[in-house]
């Protein structure tokens, strides 16, 4: 029972991270119908930004300002910087390709992914880093409930993710920006004819989606995951799976999909074998796609002749 609950906690934490990345994937797919393969690398950039902010403030074991302030600074800076990066990528790489054949932006996305991964490798080297979280948030700060350990970091991650998802939900469903985003997603040409500034809406979508990826990167670093220039690929792939399982283009779908993938991964790692956890996740994806190709919350695409 202890193992079971512990696994649920682990699954919830990873699931929240995947969901945050998946949301960006899904939003971008919604407005542009583009599989943005560079999205996972934005998460990686976010993790690196957090790492260098810790180093800036004296390193993990000798922080010169309070811990909560460091965390806030990391999250804010990373969100803004990665969001800006996302907007820049959209502006310079994807916007010229709005009317190009479908395969062109896909290749561009792969090219951007190459550039991001290898630029980080060039600038910061290939070795694996870690935030070394336990040295500024001690182990004693965790909660022990009948043998189950829940670190305060895990609580923070889940709470923050839920808050961000709720914020996103309000943003998409209750604000003018959300309305125009949904309009662009359902029909870009018609939205433009009705006076919606499509370029600005798409740029905003990229900003919000990329900022969430940046925040997810910082949080994964805080969860003491290893940081290197290649983490973006696998995380992106998993988040992508999450977005697809939930129904790509659908925002609640991305949240649910993220949790599903997180739980699957945690349970297969603790009950079957950690070696096969990736294979199991991919297997679930393929099975979902075959049974329900549009995902849990997706709607089947209309076919036009």
């Amino acid at each position, binding site marked *: 029972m202890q193992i079971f609950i512990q696994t649920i906690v682990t699954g919830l934490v990873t699931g929240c991270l995947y969901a945050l990345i998946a949301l960006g994937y899904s939003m971008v*797919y919604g407005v542009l*119908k583009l*599989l943005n393969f560079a999205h996972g690398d934005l998460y990686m950039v976010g993790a690196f930004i957090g790492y260098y902010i810790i180093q800036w403030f004296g390193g993990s074991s000798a922080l010169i300002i309070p811990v909560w302030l460091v965390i806030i600074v990391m999250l804010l800076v990373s969100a803004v910087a990665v969001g800006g990066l996302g907007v*820049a990528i959209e502006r*310079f*790489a994807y916007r*010229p*390709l*709005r*009317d*190009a*054949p*479908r*395969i*062109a*932006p*896909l*290749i*561009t996305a*792969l*090219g*951007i*992914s*190459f*550039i991001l*991964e*290898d*630029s980080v*490798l*060039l*600038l910061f080297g290939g070795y694996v880093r870690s935030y070394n979280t336990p040295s500024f948030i001690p182990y004693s700060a965790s909660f022990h409930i009948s043998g189950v350990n829940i670190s305060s970091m895990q609580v923070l991650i889940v709470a923050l993710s839920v808050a961000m998802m709720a914020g996103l939900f309000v943003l998409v469903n209750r604000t003018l920006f959300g309305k125009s985003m949904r309009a662009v997603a359902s029909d*870009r*040409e018609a939205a*433009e004819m009705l006076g919606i500034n499509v370029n600005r809406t798409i740029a905003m979508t990229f900003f919000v989606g990329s900022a969430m990826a940046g925040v997810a990167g910082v949080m994964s670093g805080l969860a003491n995951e290893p940081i290197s220039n290649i983490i973006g*690929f696998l995380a992106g*792939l998993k988040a*992508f*799976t999450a977005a*697809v399982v939930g129904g*790509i283009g659908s925002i609640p779908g991305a949240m649910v999909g993220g949790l599903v993938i997180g739980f699957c991964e945690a349970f297969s790692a603790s009950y079957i074998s950690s*070696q*096969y956890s*990736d*294979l199991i996740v*991919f*297997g679930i*994806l*393929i099975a979902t*796609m*075959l049974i329900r*190709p*549009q995902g849990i919350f997706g709607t089947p*695409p209309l*076919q*036009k*002749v």
Partner: protein
Amino acid sequence: MAPIGVDEWVARSGERREQMSGPRRLLEMAGERVSWWQRLAMLAIAGFVFGQLGFNLNIDTVAFNSVLYAILALGLNIVVGWAGLLDLGYIAFFGFGSYGYALLSSHAFGSLVNFSGGVHLPIIAIIPIVLVAAGLVGVLIGLVALRLHGDYLAIVTLFVGQAFVEVVNNIDPTLFGGNNGLFGLDPWHGFGGSIGSVHGYYYAALVMLIILMAGLHLLDGSRTGRAWRALRDDPLAAEAMTVPVNLLKVMAFSFGAIVAALAGVVFAAQQGSVFPTNFQSSVLILIYACLVLGGVGGIAGAVLGGITVTVVEAMLRSPTDSSYLFYGLILLAILVRVRPWQRMVAMLVAIAAFGLVMRAIVGAISHAAISGPHGSIGWIGTVMRHWVIVPTGSITFGNILYAVLICALILIVRLHGIWRFVLIVPTVYAAACCWESRLIVDTGITAQIVLGAILVVMMAARPSGLLGTRRVEVL
């Protein structure tokens, strides 16, 4: 949001070609007079003569890889270019062929009880076995693909590709060798001989390429080929016209799988070993780059793309050639893009003068700031030594410069008129300094970055590829 009239513009592309004049017209007319098999024979002879020139091992390897990637791009073209199915798991079939060859020509099966020495079949037996197996696996994946459309298909196939790597990595390490791969494979053997050198495999691959091109050309014009294009342009309309859509999709996957497996067989034998990392998604991206760069949908385009990408990648990875390529590309961009020519000359002079002045100023302030190690060798290195600034702490300097450079490039795209001209001069100089101090030090990393940049720029400038023709997509 295509501008109105784009359908008409594409429909009239034939007429416009008729109206062309000057040398380009003459070239086209001469080209039309050569039939397809004559062109193919010319390519074969060129390939054979190239092999006979007797270059060193490096060039032989690059030549072999060019042919290999051309074959891979051709196979991908069947699925993506003709049938219009976005297959991101293509690399799995390449891996399947390679591992198939490896298992049938090494000690790998020795781990099983009854084959203590492993299996060592001659190539004449391996090729049919592997190709038939790959074709069947292709049918299987094709059947799965029938339920999926567009991007969903891309997603599922992407995971098939990932799953392949996971399977050979994790399942049964005694059979597949896990992370360490399988090594000590036999060379191609049969009929009392064997192929023992890269050179030999180059010819083998070349023969395969020529046969494949001939076969694909015939296929392209056949009923099946035309039906594939109908399927690509509009699946629903094709189905309404009684085109057997499901059969065609499965066939496309199967044919693509066979070609990829064939490439895998020659690849595994040439390398003498197979590793899971040979079939990572970065290799898939490279194959896609070949196809997209050459132009999706054409045989010549796929082959040209395969050769171009391989040669460019090999040049980027070599410390001597990468400088030629880097400075050559910058010079070419200025020569082609800057109009009128007076402005172009002014820009070149300004860049040269700017560098000399900067170097003189910085050198006068501090000698250490210009006495760092220079990357380029050969005559470019000699020239650059008297022109760029490389301080003693060259790595850090280069890193900062790299970040500055990216910001400057973004700014250049946003600016227009005289300001753009003014900014380009220091940017080119900064690029040269950054190249000499940092980028050339790690050519492997730089190669990836430049390759990514080429893909991005290429897609923005010419999304249809080098030899591709524009066509209207029905969404």
